[in-house]
């Protein structure tokens, strides 16, 4: 069955954010084990610049989501799957928002002002506090790993629909119309 696509800006923002989140998570995971040196400083700067971009984009995206109707889902699936889908989507939004905010808070608490691509500094959200900084750091890592688990679930679900159910679900988020219509009811 032909699936109604999301609007082009929504599709674009979805894939751009997907790429940015994977890159930011990878840099963060690698840099945290680097010794203090220029490489670590450069890596975390890029990590923060990408993270702040994600924060800005997710705000745009939440505004889009609250002001637009999601295209109708022309797929019959069990109620629990629909509920899991809705839960996963909102959990993703909440994490995409809260992880950069916690990261920003953590950077402020560690005494490092966040800037944006070296162009301008962002305000410090809290004053320097070592203990708070360490707590926020743990929370940032925990939420980020939680996000990656949900992303994994999200991807597996999309792949299941694409290759097992063959219901064209992925075409909702694709730039091209799906040729995968066979399995649709």
């Amino acid at each position, binding site marked *: 069955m032909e699936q109604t696509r999301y609007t082009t800006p929504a599709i674009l923002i979805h894939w751009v954010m997907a790429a940015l989140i994977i890159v930011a998570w990878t840099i963060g995971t690698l840099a945290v084990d680097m010794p203090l040196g*220029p490489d670590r*400083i450069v890596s975390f700067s890029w990590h923060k610049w990408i993270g702040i971009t994600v924060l800005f984009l997710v705000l745009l995206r939440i505004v889009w989501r609250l002001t637009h109707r999601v295209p109708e889902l022309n797929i019959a699936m069990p109620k629990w799957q629909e509920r899991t889908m809705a839960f996963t989507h909102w959990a993703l939004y909440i994490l995409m928002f809260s992880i950069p905010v916690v990261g920003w808070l953590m950077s402020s608490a560690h*005494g490092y002002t966040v*800037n944006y691509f070296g162009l301008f500094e962002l305000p410090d959200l809290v004053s320097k506090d*070592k203990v708070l900084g360490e707590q926020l750091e743990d929370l940032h890592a925990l939420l980020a790993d939680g996000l990656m688990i949900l992303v994994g679930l999200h991807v597996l679900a999309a792949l299941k629909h694409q290759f097992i159910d063959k219901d064209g679900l992925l075409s909702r988020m694709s730039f091209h119309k799906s040729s995968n219509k066979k399995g649709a009811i």
Partner: protein
Amino acid sequence: MSRSSKALAVLSASLILGGIIPAVNAAEFSAIDAAKSKITFTTKLMGSNLNGGFSKFSGKVDFNPDQPEKAKANLVIEIASFNAGGDDLQEEARGKDWFNTKSFPTANFVSDSVKNLGNNRLEIAGKLSIKGKAMPLTMAVTYQVQGKQVIFDSSFQLLRLDYGLGAGNWADTSAVANEVPVKVHLVLNSN
């Protein structure tokens, strides 16, 4: 006032007017008020300013507002009192690539000459030694006499690589800027 002390006052007044002894208000200032004085700097990491300072310093300063050009300064800064960023950064700053505090525990500024520019402004030239490297330094300084205190303020810029600060891969100035703005706020008490 007794007759003898009156005579003494007249005598000392004539001596002052005659220029034999300096006027009383020409107080000498030399005691550094450590609690009120500050040496701070800003380092730029990938576009973010990181403020820091040295909380321990001492030295000898002689200053007479009537003869500012005769002022002399010899400041000793304890590098281990470096304070900026987190614990890991402070430890790194004390290490070999940066200040190497084991071999060079102090930095030192010695004035050579003082120019009186008028309007409470001075130009102090001297030598600043950090990590065993002495470099000439000229500072624009403003001062204000407030009762028993004189307050000096100066802002200048150092280039960290001039002093070999940040060796090895730290020499990369795109991660840590070479330019380091420094601010000195020095409060002296009268003797």
